[in-house]
């Protein structure tokens, strides 16, 4: 951000000599060159002669800020304002400080006051307008642009600003009116892309204000000026659909598909022009319409996966066409050895029935048989490459995994490995199979094996880090990840710098799993930080847009920004953040035991026994190396922090406040975990989550927990009703209802009478016909015998209600083995919950708690033999021994890893 202008000397001041004015000019120059130390000396010297000169005082303030003395700068800035209440420079300066502190509402206030004191300053208005866009203060923004135009009527940027403001406010007709004036009067010399952009922007405005005929005729009349022909054509088609001119629309999208057969949007619009809303709800008649069209297109575009695949989506599984298409589609992948066949067919498994997956299974089993026996594909006499068999097995392994045939899936991938041990993709799939069955440690090792085969592959490098994180081997993950990022900085710094949100989220989850809530917060807050940066990106594009006239893209961008918190990475981070805060509320942060080691040592101490990072290290030498590196790095950082005595004056003068040189002030997340208002912190994320994802079941359920802490019972009911709409039988609805009524009973004296009345009335609705809480719980447990999640929660609540440990234990422990719905990962989640919340709040009997955890773990171990989480922690020899047996079944590959 540029500093505000230092225009106009202060009025009513002692008249300055030419020399003084020159000094001020030098000061300005020094400031611009970021030579802050020299600047401050100059300013101080000047102020000795003119102690009340506002300009000099403001420069001094800004320089202090530049020197990173933020508090002093603010104090100085405020003082200047206090002494010169009507000085616009003083207010402008203070606003600048706030803006750079990202305190935008305050900055806006200051800029407004500055503007009131000098209505002629363009710079103030420009600075103010940027903040107004940022704050979506459209009326204010409109005023700013109008004033700017009054001051500089010939400046095009102000016109553009005015037009987009009207557009964003929803006054399309005004925007169009001014845009026309602008094009006719001011911008006639515009040619090429700039002219094209303005025309297309007008089309967008007309389209949005439903002036469809005008939009169409503009597209036609100005066609020769339009550069972005594809957008124009696509828009024309869309408008035809809006106007229900389906024949015309069909022609447009047919043309577009010819140009680019792989654009799914064109296909979707084409279906729409045929009266087909979605491929999932297609009718028989509609299938007959599409069939010949796609048959023809298929012939014309043999290389377009999209065209080749679409018929598989709409053709019914029992039709002859489906099988023929399937054979044709998969042949290409098998013969050429393209690994993504399964990924391409995956969507066919999603439909409500499993008919298609059965046809696929039969087809590939027959193909496999034919390849083994004759070396040919079904219905062909052409000898295939040996690799065709490999890729067929490779596909089948993934298919069996998808349909839950664990044994068969491993059998196929192991045979594929035996056939072509050098195929890297084999190991990727095997790692995936292990992961799906809960052997996260084995999966990480398997993936690392794949990575070692091709160290130049960025995909393998990142994915292997991901697998390590999933196995809670964070040190390993960080080591692997250093191959794709700057290895000289810490991983924490790098992921933040690169906005690598998947890593941040996975890291947060891993820390949470192993009980390090503070570090979990630290990782997850990095995701939030990245989103804040996305929001601030808005400042960067305004000037670019003014120059290039990319108004369409700019408006789309601002609209995207409005919805940015809808994105999954934020939702994921926010959900876990709330969870962690709620956990910390029940189980406050405890400082880890101090070790003599530096940060690396603490990190290892924070690891739980389930995944000590050193056990996975084949050589013991690596750990000290890492520590040494870190130490070096710390030294480096320290050096940068305290600059050495200046050898050259100039160098010392240029103080750059670089984020990179900042020392991590909260390396363990301690500060984040010990804020006094944990619930408020949770609430902050909850609010954003619910605002942008009002239909998220998880968000509402987390909200219930927060509301329970705050005793906002009516809000709980509201959220639960919302959840019921989406997932009527969600087990957590039950949990929250019971928890709420239990709490109300306990705190009956202090609960508001009218609230109690409502809760009493709602009972009939929420208790499923039961008359008491206990009856409700027992009835619920009996009703949902087949669901693991329901049983688990029923047992937990029963214990809270009756302290009947035998019965609760029975429900919770047997939920693992008795129901088909249990999966290793939700059992793991339950176990984490048992350990971190249920058994840890000190309110339950210790022997019961120990017994419960032990028995639950035992049952999980039997049910999910591959899942490491339920296995006891291994010693070093055990784990390496294990790895060779689990990693590979063929001797060849074992040699490959152990050499």
């Amino acid at each position: 951000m540029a500093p505000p202008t230092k225009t106009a000397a202060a009025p009513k001041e002692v008249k300055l000599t030419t020399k003084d004015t020159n000094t001020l000019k030098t000061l300005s120059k020094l400031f611009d060159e970021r030579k802050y130390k020299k600047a401050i000396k100059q300013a101080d010297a000047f102020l000795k002669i003119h102690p009340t000169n506002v300009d000099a005082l403001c420069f001094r303030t800004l320089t202090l800020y530049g020197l990173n003395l933020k508090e002093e700068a603010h104090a100085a800035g405020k003082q200047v304002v206090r002494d010169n209440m009507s000085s616009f420079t003083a207010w402008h300066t203070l606003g600048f400080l706030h803006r750079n502190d990202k305190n935008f509402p305050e900055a806006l206030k200051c800029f407004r006051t500055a503007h009131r004191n000098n209505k002629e300053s363009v710079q103030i208005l420009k600075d103010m307008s940027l903040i107004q866009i940022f704050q979506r203060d459209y009326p204010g923004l409109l005023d700013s642009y109008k004033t700017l135009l009054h001051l500089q009527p010939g400046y095009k940027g102000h016109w553009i600003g005015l037009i987009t403001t009207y557009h964003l406010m929803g006054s399309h007709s005004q925007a169009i009116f001014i845009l026309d004036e602008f094009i006719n009067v001011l911008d006639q010399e515009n040619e090429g892309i700039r002219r094209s952009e303005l025309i297309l922007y007008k089309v967008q405005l007309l389209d949005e204000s439903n002036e469809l005929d005008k939009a169409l005729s503009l597209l036609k009349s100005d066609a020769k000026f339009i550069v972005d022909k594809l957008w124009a054509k696509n828009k024309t088609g869309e408008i035809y659909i809006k106007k229900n001119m389906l024949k015309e629309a069909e022609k447009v999208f047919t043309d577009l598909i010819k140009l680019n057969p792989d654009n799914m949007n064109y296909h979707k619009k084409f279906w729409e022009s045929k009266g087909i809303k979605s491929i999932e709800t297609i009718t028989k008649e509609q299938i007959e319409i599409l069939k010949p069209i796609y048959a023809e297109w298929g012939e014309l575009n043999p290389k377009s996966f999209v065209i080749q695949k679409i018929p598989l989506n709409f053709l019914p599984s029992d039709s002859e066409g489906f099988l023929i298409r399937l054979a044709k589609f998969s042949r290409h992948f098998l013969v050429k050895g393209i690994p993504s066949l399964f990924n391409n067919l995956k969507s066919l498994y999603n439909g409500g029935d499993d008919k298609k997956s059965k046809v696929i299974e039969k087809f590939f089993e027959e193909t496999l048989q034919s390849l083994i026996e004759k070396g040919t594909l079904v219905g062909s006499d052409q000898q295939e490459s040996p690799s065709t068999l490999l890729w067929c097995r490779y596909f089948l392994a993934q298919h069996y995994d998808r349909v839950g045939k664990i044994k068969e899936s491993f059998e196929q991938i192991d045979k594929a490995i035996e056939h072509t041990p050098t195929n890297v993709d084999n190991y990727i799939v095997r790692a995936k199979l292990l992961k799906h069955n809960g052997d996260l440690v084995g999966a990480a090792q398997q993936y690392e094996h794949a990575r070692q085969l091709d160290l130049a592959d960025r995909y393998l490098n990142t994915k292997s880090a991901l697998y390590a994180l999933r196995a809670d081997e964070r040190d390993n993950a960080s080591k692997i990840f250093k191959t794709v990022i700057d290895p000289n900085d810490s991983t924490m710094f790098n992921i933040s710098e690169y906005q690598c949100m998947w890593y941040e989220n996975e890291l947060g989850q891993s820390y949470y799993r192993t009980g390090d809530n503070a570090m979990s917060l630290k990782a997850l807050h990095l995701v939030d930080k990245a989103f804040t940066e996305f929001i601030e990106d808005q400042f960067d594009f305004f000037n670019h847009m003014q120059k290039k006239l990319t108004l369409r893209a700019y408006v789309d961008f601002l609209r995207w920004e409005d919805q940015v918190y809808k994105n999954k990475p934020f939702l994921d981070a926010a959900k876990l953040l709330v969870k962690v805060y709620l956990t910390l509320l029940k189980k406050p942060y405890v400082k880890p035991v101090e070790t003599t080691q530096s940060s690396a040592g603490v990190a290892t101490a924070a690891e739980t026994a389930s995944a000590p990072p050193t056990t996975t290290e084949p050589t013991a030498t690596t750990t000290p190396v890492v520590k040494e590196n870190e130490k070096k790095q710390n030294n480096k950082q320290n050096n940068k922090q305290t600059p050495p005595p200046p050898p050259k004056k100039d160098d010392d003068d240029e103080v750059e406040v670089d984020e990179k040189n900042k020392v991590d002030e909260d390396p363990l997340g301690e500060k984040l975990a010990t804020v006094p208002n944990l619930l408020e912190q949770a609430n902050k994320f909850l609010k954003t989550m619910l605002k942008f994802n009002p239909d998220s079941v998880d968000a509402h359920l987390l909200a219930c927990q927060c509301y329970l802490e705050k005793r906002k019972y009516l809000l709980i009911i509201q959220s639960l009703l919302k959840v019921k709409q989406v997932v009527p039988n969600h087990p957590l609805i039950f949990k929250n209802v019971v928890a709420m009524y239990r709490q109300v009973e306990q705190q009956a004296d202090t609960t508001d009478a009218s609230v109690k009345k409502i809760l009493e009335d709602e009972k009939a609705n929420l208790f499923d016909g039961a008359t008491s809480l206990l009856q409700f719980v027992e009835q619920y447990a009996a009703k949902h015998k087949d669901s693991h999640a329901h049983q688990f929660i029923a047992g937990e609540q029963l214990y809270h209600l009756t302290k009947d440990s035998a019965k609760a234990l029975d429900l919770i422990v047997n939920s693992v083995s008795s129901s088909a719905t249990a999966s290793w990962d939700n059992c793991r989640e339950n176990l984490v919950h048992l350990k971190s919340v249920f058994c840890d709040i000190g309110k339950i009997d210790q022997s019961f708690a120990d017994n419960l955890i032990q028995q639950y773990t035992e049952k999980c171990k039997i049910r999910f033999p591959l899942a490491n989480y339920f296995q006891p922690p291994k010693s070093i020899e055990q784990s390496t021994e294990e790895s060779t047996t689990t990693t590979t079944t063929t001797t060849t590959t074992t040699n490959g890893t152990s050499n």
Partner: protein
Amino acid sequence: MAIDYSSFIELGDLTDKNIGQLKLLNTSVLPVSYDDKFYQKILAAPFITKLAFYNDVLVGAVSCRVDPPVNAGEPQTLYIMTFCVLAAYRKLGIGKKLLEFVETTCAKNNYCKVTLHVQVNSDAIDFYKKYDFTIESTIQNYYRNIEPTDCYLMAKLIPVDPSAVTTTTTATNPAANNNNKNKK
């Protein structure tokens, strides 16, 4: 009906990034195993390695060493240290392509002879004979940990341009010129 497999076969270079694949290939196919030191040293001269890919998957490889001339003034020779093709991918012309590479290398650099050791019961003997290698001698107890322990020394003479013989001592090794082009 057979298809032309040769269009699927491509030769490629060894790099420090894909050396893991070569190691895995050799361990899978060869009865003799080599230690990490072996794989570290073959990346540079005087070693020459060529990899064979089938549809982008490594299925065969040859590693050679340039040996000094037997008598001073004579041209250098080439010794094949490892040569293998995955069992499933044999008889497709992959070995032939690798051998062609070896011979072209010899011709280019005036190496007058290719030699190799092969276990006396190996299927590979027929393969080498097919390409005009002859058995020069039998060495007893050549191998230590595998049975049978005897091997043949096989060789093939490469016609050399006599005028170039004197320059062979300074001939550059193609391995050194290998641009370490990355496959992905």
